[in-house]
């Protein structure tokens, strides 16, 4: 009898695992400072949940904590893809508080911002190693993509076999060059967009569903 009960329990456990809904995948939005990560996170969150993720700013390191927006349901071709968006602080290898002084900040505020920024970058790296299932890598298409931070981060993402979608943001700017990003990272698909203007978001959502669904 005990054996039969155990067998029945095992079958029911296996069946519930098979048919239970999968947990939403955590998709980290990564990239250098000022690439437009929070603008993109807010655009996705507003389009599908009505809420924003966090404040946007032209001052670097506005996002100094990883912020998660849970259960963002994206609908494509009648299918629903549920993801958690993790907006992360821009990754860098250096933070100099004097750069914030140029944005009309007092020294105390600049020092505090730089300290929070360093903590945020360390946090972002930790999330990347431990806690994300896929990555949206955002680049400013109006700047040179051949930077060490981009090279290292894309190498780190590849080494962990995480699916990665490269987004060439800010195509609304005159200096934008999507091809420059395609040339820099030919091993990945690059999707152009303007998160600020909402340009080409349909293709972005198609690709999110394809890569992370």
């Amino acid at each position, binding site marked *: 009898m005990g054996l039969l009960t155990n067998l029945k329990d095992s079958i029911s456990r296996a069946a519930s695992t098979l048919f239970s809904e999968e947990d939403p995948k955590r998709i980290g939005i990564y990239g250098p400072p000022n690439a437009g990560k929070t603008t993109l996170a807010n655009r996705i969150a507003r389009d599908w949940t009505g809420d924003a993720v966090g404040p946007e700013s032209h001052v670097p390191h506005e996002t100094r904590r990883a912020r998660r927006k849970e259960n963002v349901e994206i609908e494509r071709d009648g299918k629903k893809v549920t993801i958690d968006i993790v907006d992360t602080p821009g*990754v*860098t*290898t*250096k*933070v*100099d*508080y004097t750069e914030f002084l140029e944005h009309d900040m007092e020294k105390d505020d600049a*020092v505090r911002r*730089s*300290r929070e920024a*360093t*903590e945020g*970058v*360390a946090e972002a*790296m*930790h999330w*990347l*190693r431990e806690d994300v299932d896929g990555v949206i890598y955002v680049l400013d298409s109006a700047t040179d993509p*051949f*930077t*060490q931070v981009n*090279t*290292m981060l*894309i*190498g*780190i993402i*590849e*080494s*962990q076999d995480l699916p990665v979608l490269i987004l060439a943001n800010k195509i609304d700017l005159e200096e934008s060059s999507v091809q420059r990003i395609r040339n*820099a990272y030919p*091993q990945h698909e690059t999707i152009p967009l303007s998160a600020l203007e909402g340009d080409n978001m349909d293709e972005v959502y198609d690709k999110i569903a394809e890569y992370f669904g």
Partner: protein
Amino acid sequence: MAEVKDPDDGVQIDLISGERMAGLASMEKIRMILDGVRDGNIVILEEGLSPDEESRLIEVTMTEISPDEFNGIEIETYPKSEAADASILDRLMGKQSTQKLTVIGPANQIETLHKDETLISALVSRK
């Protein structure tokens, strides 16, 4: 590392062989790099770091940044990672090659002038 001369004489460059790095644990490598860089040295690694070690180097660097004292690091390697090209079998067997010359220095002393797939050009200044 060898005894440092007066920093006013010039910039010390430490070229570290792959053989020397191979015997070290990840955190020992990171400590050795950051200790050198914080002394104002330029550290050149013959074989570079693994992606995981690079990720930890960024994390530890961030925890050590201190206003008016240490602004972080400048690091340069060639963009192409051989690890990404390794076959699935090699990766399963742990045979990922991460060999890529890597230059690391204090952020306030080293400035990258040009970088592409085959050339890194940097300007190094005294403290």
